């Protein structure tokens, strides 16, 4: 136990040190306006300037609205994507016919980047809130869908055969064997989907007129407040990382048989 605990602490120290080294390198490069040929740090704000901008943002009365707007958009878009992605994934993974009907249009939609959706999203949804949620939704949908299909198709056929031998009906096998069997893959898909949902946030909030961390970042670019851009980026990174972490914890709690051999 003791050794385990110490190993855990030293790993956290290592992780923190890694971030500190990155920050230091950035500070040095920005302070000396380092020109590395391929990229230049001449106009990149150093971390100290970004920190000052972050303090400004933290003291601003708008901050809470920025954060809650973004959280709500991601949460709603992601939740719809999770429900739809898992349901579609189960259906497609279990039935070749449903797969034949549903997969071709989905495969056509999959490579379309979030930015390309903006004009149509604005046209399709009466409110800009709806358009923004749609873009975070479309970002999360495909990783969840594809992971679920993969998980369903890779459930051990012997487990399904055993369940049939024990009298399991199709519905019972789906609920008691397929769903838990695919659960680890689904959790992975959800964690990736959460990331891509945040990934699409700036794109989505380009439509927004007022609030949102993505909007804040975009607005800072438009009015050339470069330190604020980085603050927005870091905020999105932290929020995205936090929600993925939360999701993995929930996943671990939902699949206790699986997490034991996790790292």
């Amino acid at each position: 136990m003791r050794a385990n605990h110490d190993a855990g602490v030293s790993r956290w120290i290592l992780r923190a040190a890694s971030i500190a080294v990155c920050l230091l390198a950035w500070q040095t490069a920005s302070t000396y306006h380092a020109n590395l040929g391929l990229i230049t740090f001449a106009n990149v704000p150093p971390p100290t300037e970004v920190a000052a901008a972050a303090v400004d943002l933290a003291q601003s009365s708008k901050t809470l609205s920025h954060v809650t707007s973004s959280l709500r958009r991601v949460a709603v878009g992601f939740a719809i994507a999770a429900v739809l992605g898992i349901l579609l994934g189960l259906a497609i993974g279990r039935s070749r016919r449903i797969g034949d009907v549903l997969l071709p249009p989905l495969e056509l939609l999959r490579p379309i980047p979030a930015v390309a959706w903006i004009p149509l999203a604005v046209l399709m949804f009466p409110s800009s809130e709806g358009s923004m949620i749609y873009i975070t939704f479309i970002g999360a949908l495909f990783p969840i869908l594809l992971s679920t299909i993969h998980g369903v198709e890779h459930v051990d056929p012997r487990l399904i055969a055993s369940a049939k031998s024990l009298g399991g009906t199709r519905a019972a096998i789906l609920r008691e064997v397929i769903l838990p069997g695919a659960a680890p893959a689904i959790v992975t898909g959800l964690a990736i989907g959460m990331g891509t949902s945040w990934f699409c946030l700036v794109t989505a909030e380009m439509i927004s007129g007022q609030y949102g961390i993505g909007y804040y970042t975009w607005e800072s670019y438009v009015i050339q407040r470069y330190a604020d851009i980085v603050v927005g980026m870091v905020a999105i990174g932290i929020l995205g990382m936090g929600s993925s972490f939360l999701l993995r914890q929930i996943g671990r709690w939902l699949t206790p048989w699986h997490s034991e051999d996790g790292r």
Partner: protein
Amino acid sequence: MSGRERMSLSDTGRIDARKVSVRLGRGDTAFEAVKDLTLSVEPGEFVCLIGPSGCGKSTLLGALAGHIGVAGGELNVDGEPVQGPHPERGIVFQHHTLFPWKSILSNVTFGPKMRGVKRNLRKEQAEGILNLVGLQDFLHRYPKQLSGGMQQRVEIARVLVNKPRLLLMDEPFGALDALTRMNMQELLLDIWSKVRTTIVFVTHDIDEALFLADRVLVMSQRPGRIIEELKVPFARPRSAEVSITPEFGELKRRCLSLLHTRNESNALPRLEPLGIQNVG
């Protein structure tokens, strides 16, 4: 107990196979795994199937379980043709097929739950059968927290809780170490003396077959048929000492010579009872 007395204890679990053929694979790669196989098993009898690798023993078991369709002939249990899997024809595989996400107790209550047995009653039934296999203290563990031998005991309990007419076992102890394996064989005989059912047990271990069975059926190379039937006369309950008697040695010699003459041609790839390759 003599064989005749045991048979009279139960009247279900009779197997009649007449000229049964089973084909595996699709299209050009299809082949006959079992051909013109005829056998009959009495209710409550313990039969072991032995034969060379890939001879179709497991395929026959899969057909009895209802996982593989019969291409020709008749395969009846208690006069009814086998059609699809059914809890009355339970199967135990060599490799673990317990649900990893369910506790030991929930694995065993799965069958009763599917039949709509009330929660309290199915828990009671499962605890009773787990008691019988000596796992009453492990109800809330997950399968992978148990040893291989214990997991196989759960598999047996999970099938027996449904009071099946047939208990089909596909090399159930094949992956266990020698000592665990011996204990499991004795445990199985003990359980079988208490929960009477017909057992068809596939193995490639001659000692195991002779120790367990009322009757040993020897199969030919693929396409498999029954080429020899050996009655095992040892009185029950049996103990491990039976394997050092001269009669045991004589029967073993018979089996070896039957298997040996047919082992000279190249061995065929192993078949799985579901017609799938083993991935585990």
